[in-house]
């Protein structure tokens, strides 16, 4: 029998790895990948909590479904943005997209 904490620790680790990817990678698409990892970790958390603490309450799964939808739409829009930026500036390196600089 697997304690809840194992799931949570795993989710935390996955989250942190995804965080590192989002913060440390130069390529924008790699950043999106890191973000997807983070979202997956969140989903794991949601479902684990549903299963262990209130399994009768279907809201946990419903929430997870919604998160899936959101993650998908977010990935789509983000990648569309990256493509648009690539068209303009021929680069997808996040460091070079510093038009909000002083």
């Amino acid at each position, binding site marked *: 029998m697997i304690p809840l904490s194992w799931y949570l620790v795993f989710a935390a680790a996955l989250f942190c790895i995804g965080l590192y990817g989002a913060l440390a990678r*130069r390529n924008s698409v790699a950043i999106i990948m890191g973000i997807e990892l983070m979202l997956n970790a969140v989903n794991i958390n949601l479902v684990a909590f549903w299963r262990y603490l209130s399994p009768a309450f279907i809201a946990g799964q419903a929430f997870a*479904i919604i998160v899936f939808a959101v993650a998908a739409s977010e990935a789509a829009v983000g990648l569309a943005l990256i493509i648009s930026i690539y068209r303009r500036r021929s680069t997808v390196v996040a460091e070079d997209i510093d038009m909000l600089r002083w």
Partner: protein
Amino acid sequence: MSALQWVFLLIAATTLVAAIMVVVGPNLVHAAMWLILALAGVAVFFVLLDAGFLAVVQVAVYIGAIAILIIFAIMLTRHLTADTEPQVTRSWWLAALASMVLFGGLLTMLTQIPTLTVGAPPLPGNPENNVRDLGQALVSLDQYVLPFETASVLLLAALIGSIVIALPPKAARADEAES
């Protein structure tokens, strides 16, 4: 350790290694492959957590759509010297440090709370009715139809938005229209 726990550990290790390869690997396409593996591992976890439907959705949506989308994006935004450039930012050590610290904090917190060490309680109701209950929950007026519909609208917006954003600039479209 029971067999279940060994399985858990195995899948967890695989997923984490795959995740690490995603964020560390220099080659983006390889990173995308590793991402697919990580997502698959997460799907297995969903199965372990008695959320079979979610596992399928994970595979279909994440691996089938999002990962493919990512691969397309990588293809469309490549340039020749992409793989020889450094793949991490100048302050990657700061990000690593932040992640470590966060993980350390979360870990400390999680192992100290007693209620989280409980085992899984038995599933109430009929597991076969899971999908039907989920479906009904999503469209019942007195349940979660509103978030569901909102999410639909969000998807629609994302759909239209991403098409608009990703359209070529006006000059290119004008050329295309003429030719």
